[in-house]
């Protein structure tokens, strides 16, 4: 019987060591439910599988490599909830995603720059006025993407306590089935009410636009809204928190960013590569027998693609274990690849570019307020990061 997916980290920034040190890019992997599937750790193979339509994203075909289902695996073995296109294949996936892609183009995200700069500046002002120390997660990393996705979708930010709580339960590996079910019911109920309000009184936001376009059912609108809300919250927030932790532990890199010695665009890509917050990888199920790297994957077998391992593959990145903001991180898989590649990636990039640059410009003396070993890391969550980041300046 093969081993389970290694999940224990030794260093807060490095993926579990068992993922490395083998020349096998494809290994048998045991799943907690007894399934015998596969683990992919090389960049080339992970990219190939993600682009290959013979491997499915359908929820009903999926198995999870970690004990607790994450949000998109909410009911593994059953079809995805309406609107949950992350767990569907084309053409269902294509129909739903295409309703949204016009809202997340490079141009449209660039147009949000002034508003995001304003949000970032307001939070840095508040942090400065309150004085050190601060928890960077609560003061900066979480509220910025949260406010931005709420404004974009048209979700009142004042209601955030409800869905931030639900989001953390749905993405927490230690949440019980009951807790997850309650969180799901609470958040979908809230969003169903919101969709009703948008239908009655449309405003200038994404949810109103989708409601007015009339292509999606109410259930689909709720599913899409939930997906965007959760994805918009946890991903960028954890990149900002964990990325800042990493920069504080690599002061020469933080200085290169602050001084402009490396372009912030490049820095963001390298932080994405180095940290790969989707820590347990992503899964695909073979729709037919497929030969891969000299092995036979049989129909129905599940592959786990370790994005953290692929992004540390020495065949793709010459010094993969080093954080080098000036290095070449092009082609990293932190946003995935294939038809499911992150819809919000251009938004995430803008938020991170503005966020990191403004943070280190405002607080050139930013430092950890606790020993690094006391920073609580999210090894219990589907999306890696820090629970809190106490900082001073």
């Amino acid at each position, binding site marked *: 019987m093969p081993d389970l997916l290694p999940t224990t980290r030794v260093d807060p920034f490095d993926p579990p060591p068992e993922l490395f040190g083998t020349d096998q890019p494809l290994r048998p992997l045991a799943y907690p439910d007894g399934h015998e599937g596969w683990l992919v750790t090389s960049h080339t193979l992970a990219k190939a599988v993600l682009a290959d339509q013979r491997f499915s994203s359908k929820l009903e075909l999926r198995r999870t490599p970690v004990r607790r289902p994450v949000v998109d695996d909410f009911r593994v073995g059953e079809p995805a909830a309406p609107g949950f296109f992350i767990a569907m294949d084309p053409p269902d996936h294509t129909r739903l*995603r295409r309703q949204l*892609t016009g809202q*997340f*183009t*490079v*141009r449209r995200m660039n147009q949000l720059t002034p508003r995001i700069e304003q949000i970032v500046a307001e939070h840095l002002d508040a942090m400065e006025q309150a004085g050190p120390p601060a928890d960077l997660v609560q003061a900066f990393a979480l509220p910025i993407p949260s406010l931005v996705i709420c404004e974009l979708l048209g979700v009142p930010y004042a209601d955030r306590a409800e869905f931030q709580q639900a989001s953390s339960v749905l993405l927490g590996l230690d949440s019980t089935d009951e807790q997850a079910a309650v969180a799901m019911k609470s958040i979908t109920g809230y969003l169903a009410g919101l969709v009703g309000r948008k239908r009655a009184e449309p405003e200038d936001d994404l949810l109103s636009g989708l409601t007015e376009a009339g292509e999606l059912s109410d259930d689909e609108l709720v599913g899409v809204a939930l997906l965007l809300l959760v994805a918009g919250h946890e991903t960028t927030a954890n990149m900002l928190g964990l990325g800042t932790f990493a920069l504080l532990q690599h002061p020469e890199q933080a200085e290169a960013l602050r001084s402009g010695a490396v372009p912030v665009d490049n820095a963001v890509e390298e932080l994405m590569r180095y940290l790969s917050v989707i820590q347990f990888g992503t899964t695909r199920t073979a729709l037919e027998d497929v030969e891969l790297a000299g092995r036979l994957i049989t129909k129905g077998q599940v592959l786990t693609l370790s994005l953290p391992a692929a992004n540390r593959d020495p065949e793709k990145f010459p010094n993969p274990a080093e954080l080098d903001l000036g290095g070449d991180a092009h082609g990293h898989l932190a946003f995935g690849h294939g038809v499911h590649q992150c819809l919000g990636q251009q938004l995430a990039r803008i938020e991170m570019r503005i966020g990191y640059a403004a943070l280190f410009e405002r607080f050139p003396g930013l430092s950890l307020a606790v020993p690094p070993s006391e920073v609580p890391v999210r090894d219990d969550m589907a999306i890696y990061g820090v629970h809190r980041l106490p900082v001073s300046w």
Partner: protein
Amino acid sequence: MIEADRDVCIGAGMCALTAPAVFDQDDEDGRVLVLDEQPPASEAGVVREAVELCPSGALTLRDT
């Protein structure tokens, strides 16, 4: 010469991000628009990179 398959495109925007002089995205559905099918040699590097980065395989380079 660049060919773009708009049926395959998923609007991720990697092309418009990587080679903005050559690629744009439709305001309506985010799908790729090729601004210059025969870009100058100075763009060759970023165009190749855009093709390689395209997540859905919607872009193809052909010798002319």
